[in-house]
């Protein structure tokens, strides 16, 4: 009996803990999100860990209000959109494969409008 309880407890521990993020949009990208620049989001619990890859899919389904092709191209962001994870270039963090941690800060800045 105890062993079953122990195994069940271990199985539950493998499921990813809820991940809370601050997602920000800048440089004009906020236009696609109702003009709101900062979104405090909590990603739903799921067995697979959250990477940037599935975060993008989630943003497309949940937050993106219009013109998805202006933000996402295939698997990744549109060329011209910079991604910062905790104020660092996502190229240094593994880009799409970066594993999100709780309280991370992800910023999407569009460079498509010059100034």
């Amino acid at each position, binding site marked *: 009996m105890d062993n079953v309880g122990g195994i069940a407890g271990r199985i539950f521990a493998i499921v990813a803990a809820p991940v809370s993020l601050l997602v920000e949009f800048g*440089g004009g990208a906020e236009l696609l999100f109702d003009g709101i620049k900062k979104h405090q989001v909590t990603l739903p619990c799921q067995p697979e860990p959250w990477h940037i890859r599935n975060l993008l899919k989630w943003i497309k389904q949940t937050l993106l209000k219009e013109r998805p092709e202006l933000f996402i191209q295939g698997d990744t962001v549109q060329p011209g959109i910079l991604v910062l994870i905790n104020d*660092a270039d996502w190229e240094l963090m593994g880009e799409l494969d970066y594993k999100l941690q709780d309280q991370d800060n992800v910023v999407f800045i569009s*460079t498509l409008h010059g*100034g």
Partner: protein
Amino acid sequence: MCQAQEEYGGCDQPQRRPRVSCAQKCMKCKEASPVLVIRVGDAFCKACFREYFVHKFRAMLGKNRAIYPGEKVLLALSGGPASSSMLRQVQEGLSREIAKKLRFIPGIIYVDEGAVCGQSLAEREETLLQMETILQASGFPYHLAHLEEVFDLPSSILQRAPHSPAGPENSYKEAVEGFICQQRREEGGSPSLPERRIQEKLAELSMREAPGTEGLAAPGARLLGAVRTEQLVQLFGSVKTLTAKEELLQTLRNHLILHTARAQGYSKVMMGDSCTRLAVKLLTNLSLGRGASLAVDTGFSDDRHGDVVVVRPMREYSAKEIAFYNHLFGVPTVFTPALDTKALEKASIHRVIERFLFGLQAEFPSTVSTVYRTGEKLSTAPGDADPATGAAEPQHCLLCLCALDTNVEDGSALQAILVSEQLSQQRLPAASPAGRGCCPGAEEQRGCCMNTTAPGADARADFLPLLCYGCRLTIKDTTCLESLPLYVRSEAERRKCRAAMKLEIQEFLLEDEAVNPGES
């Protein structure tokens, strides 16, 4: 593309650029952990990046030696990332200790284009409020202009003013040394410093009272403003393609900035065009038929107006560097929707080229800098004498003031285009007015817009020879020439009359010996 180690057999994706991992150290100080990657694989930490960024600005100004100490320079601020970053660099540069200080006197101009971009009055006021906060925080004298003011410009804008050529290299050094000595002397004796400050304050006051800054506020001016806004909307409404609209907007904006610079005594204008933007502009201009003026359109200094020189100190910063700097160091920007915001991918040539370049850059990160470096090699040729008219200096386009590139020589591409235009006109003498803008070499189904009702056709036929090829395409997409601002039309009229007059008295003019060597 050529990549030595690439294996074409097995992989389904082109090999991506090498990944730089967070585990590596900053390539400059080798100590801190990096926060961003510039170019291909250069990782910088925050402090080193800041140094690199600031240094590049000063090196750009120093290398080109275009700005003399004590000169008045107008910063063109659009609220976007690049120009906001430029403003911050100027602020930083002016605040350093005197030996290394930037030595010019800045002013700022912001042009409100909300009417053209379809923004309501309330939205425009809100944007203006945000911009004013930034402008006031900078501490420099500033000018708020509305694009509607373009209807009140004098036609002298379209005339090239004489420009006193810059002296030889030595004079720059002498000017700098003289300036430093003068500053040291002034610091010793106190009376002149407060005087100078008072003069500056007076200058600020006079600028703030200029009519443009209160355009939306005062009730009498509000009525005029509404009329002008209507005219502006009508003008842009009569332009059929987004490409032509963008070109026209740029032209009008430049004229307005130039006018402000001339009126307020600025001899230089700084534009915040980044490397990425200039690469896009280069390719776009080639596609628009503006290849002849590439050097002035994308070079560091642009002296087509004569007395006021436009410089582009941000031209070596990529859009990524600017965006990172603004985010990491809190540079305030105001996003305003432009003409092509949320437009379809192929709505205008500008969009197509931008999409193309950005897409290529994502896979091959040296694309933008390669285009830029190629553009850097372009330089303006000294003005050649125009053999057709025998004029000493080349004629200039009415709108963009570049040298006219429309000599129809035998075998030139322009001649081929004009011939095919004429052929298609003759085939359909009574064609209905063109549905879309006339493109050179129009298909046979659609008549050339030169076939419309006689007065319109005449006006257009008179107007087009005054323009360079690129501007001709823009004007061909404009259905109603009457809605162009008065200064453009009156200058066109003036030039036409002069040309006609010159033709009449041609036989009485003494001709150059080079043109007619044999005749007496």
